[in-house]
């Protein structure tokens, strides 16, 4: 569309968005008006929505921001720190002010940018950070006590002293913060999607579309992603023509060409948010956010999180207008000049009819001309003086249109708090450090300001791309020289994001970048050459080429008092409420570098990441230091470009898919028989099997007692199991374990400890020689994968010529541990083997059959009782479990879980690696010197055991503890001290690693690691608990029960 088509409509209740205007000022022409048409809206179709409890009307295609402006809503929020009234400032993703809470209940979403929320029927939004209402906000008291909340307040509070933080915290938590987090689960569906392409193009403005066409015509697989619901970029709102036709006609032609190509994927409503190494990019696609809530059917996707690997990337992300820093520039009604054009031409909203355009460059003249021609009263204030403006054709155009241009002037203050009543304009002194002469007050309710343009270099910067300072733009642009190329992230920037502001050049450079990207790395035959010919001929636009024509930048517009010394504030970061005075304060306190400045003032650290403020902050600091902007530095942009929904990042991987649990073959039986489960690694293991009326303690005490009295069975299927085969296995085990293995006969089992090269215990288990060159290794449940990895590491990297083949068989075997005095009788009911002491001694193995199921039976014990571990193919696990269980009933056999297993092994002083050890424990520390071979020349970790610190005598050692009061169970983790002081700190000598009530001993028992423990048997120590309680205990041997080990035998 163009201006000629835009006709204003008189306010009337039958017209969308105008009824409020009429109510607001009855009988007069409203200050704001809905025009006849815009490139993004259908003004004939009304959409109803609710804002802060008021029913309002917008039109199809509106954003929430454009609809609010069409209803005359100017005040949309309160600022973060001072709670100052704020209005809509921009029309895009850079919006710092207009953050709203969208919807409520389970659908609620805080901090959404009203400028990016697409309006839908029934939308409900509320303003944020204000209580009780946006018009009367208690927090605004902060504004009056600004002196106690200077820049650096948070910084200093965090730094010192720690105790004061507790005092401040309550106050800050209540006063600060933006929207409210949802408190119930997100009901929406999300997904992650992986995509691969030859060329990814980000941004579908003129440069991006040209790049896409060039790349696509080579046959390359191309993905084009556009943040907006529509493609076209700046052509949606500027008045440019291409080939003598309106720009949007060219967009339509381009789009129909692209849509017909199978190698092109065009994704709109999709923000590329992160650019990571090797051209890995992430993007958030909003699929149903723009639909009325009722139309978002259950089970359909809300958002999609893209993970893209692209061979090449072309960035066409455009630019963001820069505000001017003048006194009270945060008042509702101060907006970026270009956003006024966007609202007028895309959304058909004439934001005001009393406009002051305040600029330092040519680009804002189009705003003035277009608003003037749409019927508004417009005044131009230009910081450039008459010399600088001489022969400027835009000034001439403005004057010809009847617009008054105040050259060499600046806005020195703004009248009005919740809305602008007028601005006061002063003439700048020669040095531009102050104003003099008579001031002029101009009636207006809106100021469109433009301080130039910042190329949107965020993604380029995220990809490690270097930036260079472009003086003519007074901004950073991507350094695209060959020297600066990032080898791992081949990419190009084209168009405004590369500092190119002429439409013709944007098209040409976009096309060239797309073509280069598609062909880079291909040999000459790699794809058809692409001619640019006839794609676009001449272009025309009102102001494009004038954008870069700055005078020397005036970064801080003077007011009637020095910065920081009077009531008026120059805000540069609207979202985090940071002023120019704050930068001066930071400089005075020595926070000169940009990284310090950021942390001290919090500039650029809001949810907008300072899209409108970063360069200004750098520039002001440069001014203060008398330095050039590049000397101050530039901030590193980090992902995401705009906030990404956490639910979308998680995608479909939630609930059951978040972390898969592992279940044994016998799991269902446990469920049916009332087991309570605990998580061990990813496994679900029965913790205990409560009987009617039993609590956990009672159930565990019963199970522990029963195992020793009659017997019990445990599902031990989760133990790690590794099948080892090959002629060199014995030699290998000699290196892996601390004890001797070559002597192990076929059919025999042996317990072993594994050390890392530091000499520290990292796993244990029993390994059995099944046949001459065939071994079965068991590991801890949690250590299975780690041990297999450890074996493979040594075999692949150090001893590749050894013939050893490892295979995980954890899942292949179900394991039932049968323990207790009746174990042998129960087993004999189901199996023909001779289980006598002689025929089947402790630490041996035989194959047999349980019923008719083939089984590997190991006579090994983790309880100190007569014990058999029966391994059967996993699919028979439940069947064999049931056979044994049935056979055991006449002997009062019980089932027991992991908790009873822990108590039973602790009664015997058997360690659990990872519970009683922590990676700093040697076999000697565990009192297990007997398992460390003195004869072997070498094994992993051996040499470390004789290092001075490892061989030291008084190291922490494993001991038993008996509390003076036998009823008291020490909390695991309790610290042990000898000398009790009034309050911490006290010298800790060790800690409790395992602690239980033992029914078989009729008292509590504990294991502990304590300094020089083995030499201190009989001594007393004290556990001091967090609450100050003291528990006295005696150091004893760590074996509490059957210390001679007689029960494992007949």
């Amino acid at each position: 569309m163009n201006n000629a088509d835009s006709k204003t409509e008189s306010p009337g209740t039958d017209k969308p968005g105008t009824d409020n205007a009429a109510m607001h000022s009855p009988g007069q022409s409203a200050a704001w008006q809905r025009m006849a048409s815009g490139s993004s809206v259908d003004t004939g179709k009304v959409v109803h929505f609710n804002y802060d409890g008021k029913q309002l009307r917008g039109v199809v295609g509106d954003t929430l921001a454009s609809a609010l402006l069409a209803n005359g809503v100017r005040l949309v929020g309160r600022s973060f720190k001072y709670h100052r009234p704020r209005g809509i400032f921009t029309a895009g993703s850079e919006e710092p002010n207009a953050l709203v809470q969208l919807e409520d209940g389970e659908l609620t979403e805080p901090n959404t940018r009203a400028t990016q929320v697409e309006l839908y029927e029934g939308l409900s939004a509320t303003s944020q950070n204000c209580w009780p209402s946006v018009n009367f906000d208690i927090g605004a008291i902060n504004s009056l006590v600004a002196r106690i909340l200077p820049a650096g307040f948070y910084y200093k509070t965090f730094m010192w002293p720690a105790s004061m933080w507790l005092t401040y915290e309550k106050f800050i938590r209540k006063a600060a913060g933006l929207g409210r987090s949802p408190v119930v689960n997100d009901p929406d569906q999300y997904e992650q999607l992986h995509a691969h392409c030859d060329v990814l193009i980000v941004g579908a403005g003129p440069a991006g579309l040209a790049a896409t066409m060039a790349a696509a015509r080579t046959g390359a697989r191309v993905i084009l992603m556009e943040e907006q619901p529509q493609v076209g970029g700046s052509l949606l709102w500027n008045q440019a023509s291409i080939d003598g036709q309106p720009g949007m006609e060219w967009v339509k032609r381009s789009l129909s060409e692209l849509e017909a190509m199978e190698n092109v994927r065009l994704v709109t409503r999709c923000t590329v948010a992160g650019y990571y190494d090797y051209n890995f990019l992430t993007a958030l696609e909003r699929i149903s956010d723009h639909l009325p809530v009722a139309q978002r059917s259950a089970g359909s996707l809300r958002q999609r999180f893209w993970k893209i690997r692209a061979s090449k990337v072309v960035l066409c992300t455009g630019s963001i207008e820069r505000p001017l820093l003048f006194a009270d520039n945060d008042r509702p009604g101060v907006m970026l000049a270009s956003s006024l054009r966007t609202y007028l031409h895309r959304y058909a909203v004439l934001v005001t009819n009393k406009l002051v355009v305040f600029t330092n460059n040519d680009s804002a003249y189009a705003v003035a001309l277009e608003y003037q021609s749409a019927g508004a009263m417009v005044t131009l204030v230009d910081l450039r003086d008459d010399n600088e403006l001489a022969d400027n054709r835009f000034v001439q155009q403005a004057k010809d249109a009847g617009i008054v241009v105040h050259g060499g002037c600046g806005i020195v203050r703004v009248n009005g708090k919740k809305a602008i009543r007028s601005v006061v304009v002063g003439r700048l002194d020669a040095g531009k450090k102050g104003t003099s002469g008579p001031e002029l007050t101009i009636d207006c309710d809106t100021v469109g300001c433009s301080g130039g343009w910042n190329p949107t270099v965020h993604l380029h910067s995220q990809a490690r791309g270097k930036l260079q300072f472009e003086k003519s733009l007074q901004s950073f642009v991507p350094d695209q020289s060959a020297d600066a190329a990032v080898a791992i992230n081949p990419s190009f920037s084209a168009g405004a994001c590369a500092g190119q502001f002429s439409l013709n050049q944007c098209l040409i450079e976009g096309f060239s970048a797309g073509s280069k990207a598609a062909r880079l790395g291909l040999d000459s035959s790699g794809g058809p050459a692409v001619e640019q010919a006839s794609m676009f001929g001449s272009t025309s636009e009102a102001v494009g080429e004038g954008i870069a024509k700055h005078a020397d930048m005036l970064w801080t517009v003077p007011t009637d008092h020095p910065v920081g010394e009077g009531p008026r504030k120059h805000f540069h970061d609207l979202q985090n409420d940071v002023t120019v005075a704050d930068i001066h304060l930071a400089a005075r306190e020595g926070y000169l570098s940009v990284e310090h400045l950021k942390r001290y003032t919090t500039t650029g650290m809001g949810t907008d990441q300072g899209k409108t403020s970063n360069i200004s902050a750098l520039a002001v600091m440069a001014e203060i230091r008398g330095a050039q902007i590049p000397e101050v530095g530039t901030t590193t942009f980090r992902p995401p470009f705009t906030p990404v929904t956490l639910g979308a990042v998680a995608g479909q991987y939630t609930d059951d898919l978040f972390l898969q649990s592992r279940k044994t073959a016998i799991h269902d039986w446990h469920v049916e028989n009332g087991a309570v489960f605990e998580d061990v690694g990813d496994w679900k293991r029965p913790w205990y099997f409560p009987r009617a009326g039993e609590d956990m303690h009672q159930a565990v005490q019963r199970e522990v007692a029963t195992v020793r009295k009659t017997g019990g069975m445990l599902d031990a299927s989760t133990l790690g199991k590794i099948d080892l085969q090959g002629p060199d296995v014995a030699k290998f085990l000699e290196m892996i374990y601390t004890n001797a293995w070559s002597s192990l006969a076929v059919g025999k089992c042996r317990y072993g400890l594994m050390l890392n090269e530091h000499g520290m215990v990292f796993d244990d288990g029993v390994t059995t020689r099944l046949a001459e060159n065939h071994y079965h290794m068991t590991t801890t449940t949690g250590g299975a994968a780690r041990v297999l990895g450890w074996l493979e590491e040594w075999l692949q990297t150090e001893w590749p010529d050894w013939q050893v083949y490892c295979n995980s068989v954890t899942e292949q075997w179900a394991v039932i541990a049968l323990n207790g005095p009746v174990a042998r009788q129960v087993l004999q009911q189901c199996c023909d083997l001779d289980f006598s002491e002689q025929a089947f001694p402790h630490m041996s193995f035989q194959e047999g059959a349980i019923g008719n199921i083939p089984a590997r039976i190991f006579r090994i014990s983790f309880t100190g009782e007569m014990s058999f571990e029966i391994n059967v193919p996993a699919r028979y696990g439940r069947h064999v479990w049931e056979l044994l269980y049935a056979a055991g009933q006449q002997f009062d056999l019980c089932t027991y879980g992991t908790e009873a297993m822990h108590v039973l092994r602790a009664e015997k002083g058997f360690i659990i690696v990872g519970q009683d050890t922590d990676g700093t424990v040697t076999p000697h520390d565990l009192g297990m010197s007997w398992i460390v071979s003195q004869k072997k020349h070498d094994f992993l970790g051996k040499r470390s055991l004789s290092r001075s610190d490892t061989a030291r005598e008084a190291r922490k050692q494993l001991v038993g503890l008996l509390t003076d009061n036998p009823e008291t169970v020490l909390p695991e983790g309790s610290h042990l001290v000898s000398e009790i002081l009034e309050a911490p700190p006290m010298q800790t000598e060790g800690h409790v690693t395992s602690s239980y009530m033992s029914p078989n001993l009729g008292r509590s028992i504990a294991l502990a690691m304590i300094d020089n423990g083995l030499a201190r048997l009989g001594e007393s120590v004290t556990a001091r608990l967090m609450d100050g309680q003291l528990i006295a205990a005696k150091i004893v041997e760590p074996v509490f029960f059957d210390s001679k080990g007689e029960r494992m035998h007949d």
Partner: protein
Amino acid sequence: MLLIDCPWCGERDQTEFSAHGEAHIARPQNTAELSDEEWGDYVFFRKNIKGIHYERWVHDFGCRRWFNAIRDTASDQIFATYKPSDAVPDITAADKASES
């Protein structure tokens, strides 16, 4: 996120791999004869290079094979990946490029 060329499987996402530090450190044969210092050097000390680094990787969530990579730790550019049994690739040209 790195894209790593497993010598057995081809290019895969970094999430499938884990890194294990400096490569080409042979385990000493005569551990009993080493001084504490010599043994400590083997166990604890590794180069911490800014630039070209020869390092060990394993394709945990793939073929579970170990291999070596030559990576610039500053730019994350990977110049070569190779099997433990392979000769160390010559990356002289890349080396020079990274120094300049």
